[in-house]
């Protein structure tokens, strides 16, 4: 490139060229208002966003872009006054297109003064944020749906657990007690058989009890994730399965109840897999804040043999773990190598509670 052409490029842009540039911008509505708020210029972006051609709109007051409720409350005038007082005003809110439909706009109004300090008007830049807003909405909707799903699932599990406890187990306890009583009363030739019967009923009671424990582990909703996991490790992994374990946790804040339950459920399933398949003697569980969420790792020292995928229940367990994590907006992975054990690792976002959203406008807004 010659020195001559370089100099040409660096030369200040002429006013005409600048006007052309502004007029051609499509992503932003850029236009000017006179000191009273009448539109005095228009660009392609403004036409695209608002639907007016220059000849339709130049000369009109900019309050036509505001919904009637904002017009009634004097918002357009107030915005100009604020821009005069503070030099600039930025606002995000509903605006109205030519056809009456609304869009979510980001608006910046800048007061323009001449060299003598006289107000010459306003520059106004409008961006259509509807898509971004819709995306945010979709995200928080999804979150709400997820929370609802988790709550519904837990409520149902709790209900089943209570029913099993209060009804099925009690009925079987009554049967077992009566069988034992009967065994003491019948001729000796029947005693052995009755004792065997009694033993199977009591074993069924144990199984039902551990089912209810899995369905609704006591403690998780009263004491939170860490305590819930700690008592699961102590009561089930340590006491019942007789497996050595370590538990490390480092959370910068307590997760929402739904996130806590999801982490607990996945960890519970991963631990069950270790118990059933890993043939290991210990398991290490770690829960830590990471990347705006929580990463959980369940590592065993088992054979590292790939988990049998043929059993429907086991396969379902893997699918369930992954689905739970992904529904929560996170990821899940399981990797194992023969001889070094298996690692189940998953990350879930830990969002703060969803804030109340701006109410939607009436459908047939003017």
């Amino acid at each position: 490139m010659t020195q001559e052409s370089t100099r040409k490029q660096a030369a200040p842009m002429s006013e005409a060229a600048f006007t052309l540039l502004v007029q051609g911008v499509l992503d932003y509505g850029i236009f000017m208002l006179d000191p009273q708020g009448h539109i005095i210029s228009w660009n392609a972006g403004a036409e695209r966003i608002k639907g007016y051609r220059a000849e339709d709109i130049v000369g009109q007051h900019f309050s036509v872009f505001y919904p009637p409720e904002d017009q009634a409350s004097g918002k357009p005038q107030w915005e100009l006054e604020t821009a005069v007082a503070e030099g600039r005003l930025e606002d995000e809110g509903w605006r109205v297109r030519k056809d009456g439909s609304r869009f979510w706009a980001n608006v910046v109004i800048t007061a323009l003064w001449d060299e003598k300090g006289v107000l010459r008007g306003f520059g106004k830049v409008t961006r259509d944020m509807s898509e971004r807003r819709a995306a945010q909405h979709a995200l928080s909707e999804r979150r709400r749906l997820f929370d609802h799903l988790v709550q519904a699932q837990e409520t149902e599990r709790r209900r089943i657990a209570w029913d099993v406890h209060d009804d099925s187990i009690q009925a079987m306890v009554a049967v077992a007690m009566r069988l034992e009583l009967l065994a003491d009363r019948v001729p000796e030739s029947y005693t052995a058989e009755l004792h065997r019967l009694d033993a199977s009923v009591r074993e069924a009671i144990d199984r039902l009890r551990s089912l209810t424990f899995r369905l609704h582990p006591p403690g998780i909703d009263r004491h939170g994730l860490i305590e819930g996991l700690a008592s699961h490790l102590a009561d089930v992994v340590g006491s019942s399965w007789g497996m050595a374990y370590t538990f490390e946790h480092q959370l910068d804040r307590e997760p929402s109840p739904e996130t806590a339950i999801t982490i607990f459920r996945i960890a519970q399933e991963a631990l069950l897999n270790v118990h059933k398949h890993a043939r290991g003697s210990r398991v290490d569980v770690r829960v830590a804040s990471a990347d705006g969420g929580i990463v959980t790792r369940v590592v065993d020292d088992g054979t590292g043999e790939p988990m049998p995928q043929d059993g429907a229940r086991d396969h379902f367990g893997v699918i369930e773990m992954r689905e739970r994590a992904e529904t929560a907006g996170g990821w899940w992975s399981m990797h194992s190598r023969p001889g070094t054990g298996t690692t189940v690792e998953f990350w879930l976002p830990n969002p703060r509670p969803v804030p109340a959203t701006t109410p939607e406008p009436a459908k047939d807004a003017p």
Partner: protein
Amino acid sequence: MTATAGRPGPPLSVLLCDDNAMLLEVLSEVVQAQPDLEVVGTACNGEQALRLAYRRQPDLVVLDVRFPGGGPSVAREIAQCSPGSRIVAFSAYDDKGSIEQMKNAGVFEYVLKGASNRELFAALRRAAATR
């Protein structure tokens, strides 16, 4: 026949508290069949339990943990209105939290529903021995 503790003297009076009618009935039969134990009342809610405990001053109370009125709080109130009674929790729950709550409420023994009758009798006799 089931071996008894061979305890001399009058049988130990027992109050049975469970909100499951079927279980209460069989519990009653099973306990009554023991020569050294005598059922002096059955209750299916907290109010009944307290009334009977106060009136009968039983040696032993078998108390469900998930009991209408709340197992732990009924246990505390029984201890007040019948200080000589020894309470044995009889529960379908074996989690630490439930066990601790009942022990803190002053129960002497915690028997899991599903344990054998013999284990229940043994717990009752152990509790009675502390009197």
